[in-house]
């Protein structure tokens, strides 16, 4: 079934419901994200933010509802047809709240893991280390170095992630995301555990990535400062239901959002 598609959108969520043994983690949510924007999803703990984006990346299969996504060729895909490990190839890439870096191989190799889908050589070429795999390896390495250079990380190239500062690790994770040539990046609470200065630097990096790599960014965040600072559109949810959607100011001024964040009106 082809949905009525607005060509401005890159991804479109229609009536997503996700129930865990009767608990409605996500209860009938629909929204669209425009191509090229930085879209923020906010909500208190347990609002269903993580569940929602796990539905997009197919780590969970939603109880009901559809996710449509426009790929690089302008084709609209129904993500029901994809498994979690196929999502990367469509150009959707996520990060993890608790930094999933491989700690005991170099930063460069961590980036090469990100480039996994850009290797086409079969096992035969890999095991015998033929010219073909050597060329691919060289291309991917060059690309990884270019990305590290752009994000000011090149000095960490040969080091192990174990022991590097947290802010640097966050940036390395972003660099690895870029290795997949993503079109839509989903960031899972990127500011968690960062201090103010690091958060500011992260905001700068996010803007830079959008500009230089033409990505759409979907930010799932708890930290209001980061969201209000960088997002074009913000969506606020609570208990799996939509509270408000619009520009950061509109959402900030919405009485429903204030209630969810600050408790009942009149209490204070």
């Amino acid at each position, binding site marked *: 079934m082809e949905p009525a598609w607005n060509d401005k959108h890159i991804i479109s969520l229609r009536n997503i419901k996700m129930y*865990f043994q009767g608990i409605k983690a996500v209860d009938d949510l629909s929204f669209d994200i425009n191509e090229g924007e930085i879209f923020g999803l906010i909500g208190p703990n347990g609002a269903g933010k993580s569940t929602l984006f796990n539905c997009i990346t197919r780590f*969970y299969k939603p109880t009901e509802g559809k996710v449509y996504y426009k790929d690089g060729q302008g084709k609209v895909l129904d993500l029901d047809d994809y498994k979690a490990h196929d999502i990367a190839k469509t150009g959707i890439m996520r990060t993890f709240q608790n930094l999933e870096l491989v700690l005991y191989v170099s930063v460069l190799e961590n980036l090469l893991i990100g480039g996994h889908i850009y290797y086409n050589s079969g096992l035969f070429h890999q095991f015998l280390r033929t010219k073909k795999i050597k060329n691919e390896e060289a291309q991917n390495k060059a690309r990884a170095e270019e990305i590290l250079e752009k994000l000011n990380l090149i000095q960490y190239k040969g080091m192990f992630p174990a022991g590097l500062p947290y802010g640097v690790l966050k940036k390395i994770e972003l660099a690895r995301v870029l290795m997949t040539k993503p079109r839509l990046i989903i960031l899972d609470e990127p500011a968690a555990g960062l201090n103010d200065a690091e958060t500011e630097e992260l905001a700068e990096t996010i803007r830079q990535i959008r500009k230089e790599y033409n990505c759409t960014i979907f930010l799932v965040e708890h930290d209001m400062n980061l969201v209000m600072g960088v997002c074009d559109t913000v969506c606020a949810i609570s208990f799996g239901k939509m509270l408000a959607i619009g520009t950061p100011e509109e959402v900030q001024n919405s009485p429903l959002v204030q209630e969810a964040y600050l408790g009942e009106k009149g209490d204070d």
Partner: protein
Amino acid sequence: MASMIQILLNNLFLVGVMVLSTLGITLTFKTANVANFAQGILATVGAFVAAFFFMRMGVDPWISLVGGVVVCFIIGYTIDVLIMSFMSSSGAVGRVMVTLGLILIISAFIPIIFGMIPYNFPRFFAGNFTWEMMGSTFIITRNGLFTFVTSMSITAIIFIALYKTKWGLMVRATASNATVAAMLGINTKRMTALSWGISSACASLAAVFLGAQTTNVHADMMAVIATISLLALVMGGFTSFFGPVIGAIIIPTATAMLAMISGLWANVLLYTFVLLTILIKPMGIFGKKTMEKV
């Protein structure tokens, strides 16, 4: 039909041995959070100690039995205090690896201490029970019946203790969440050491029973039984105490049945059957499914 019942009767002692051994493995797994791959070889030490008392020192078999079990309790307790308590940071896999290391160490020591020739151990009761029913004659060794009844009684006592006594409550609290249990004032270190001791004692009792029934004590005697106990633990599910024990009853019974049909290949068929069961129900027959958090 009659021959089938006879086969089950012959097999009764093995059910008792299996249940005790599986109870031991389940107890350490639940309280100390270790899948103790070394339990079989540890139990063998108990059987050797008992046989040593009996053969070399002329001690009465009953006292030899107690001796073997007590020595095994002490070894188990000591292993937890001396080794396992330092492994808390290395995770479940690290602890399993340590028990694998223990297998190598203990099986190296057995021939050094006890020599390479198998020991003898007498049956506790001689003779058979024979009775007529529905026109057929049934027979069971007195010793086999004793093994079965004792094993089942001990299992029942431990279950009652687990669910009715304060000690049992502390064990179950440690099993469900050691950190919380420690915060509530339970000495979890003592609990895990004690469960290592008790499960080693159960297992060595099983080994002595097996040695007595077959009148033979040798280094590999518990290898298959320990493997089956681990399979019973997986098949019965990690979440309950009952599941593994029921698995321990089903597996030897099924083997005996299969042996009637296929003779030589019974064990192969049985393992294949258990593997398939685990594949179909990975959380065990009585296990609960848990959701993975991403």
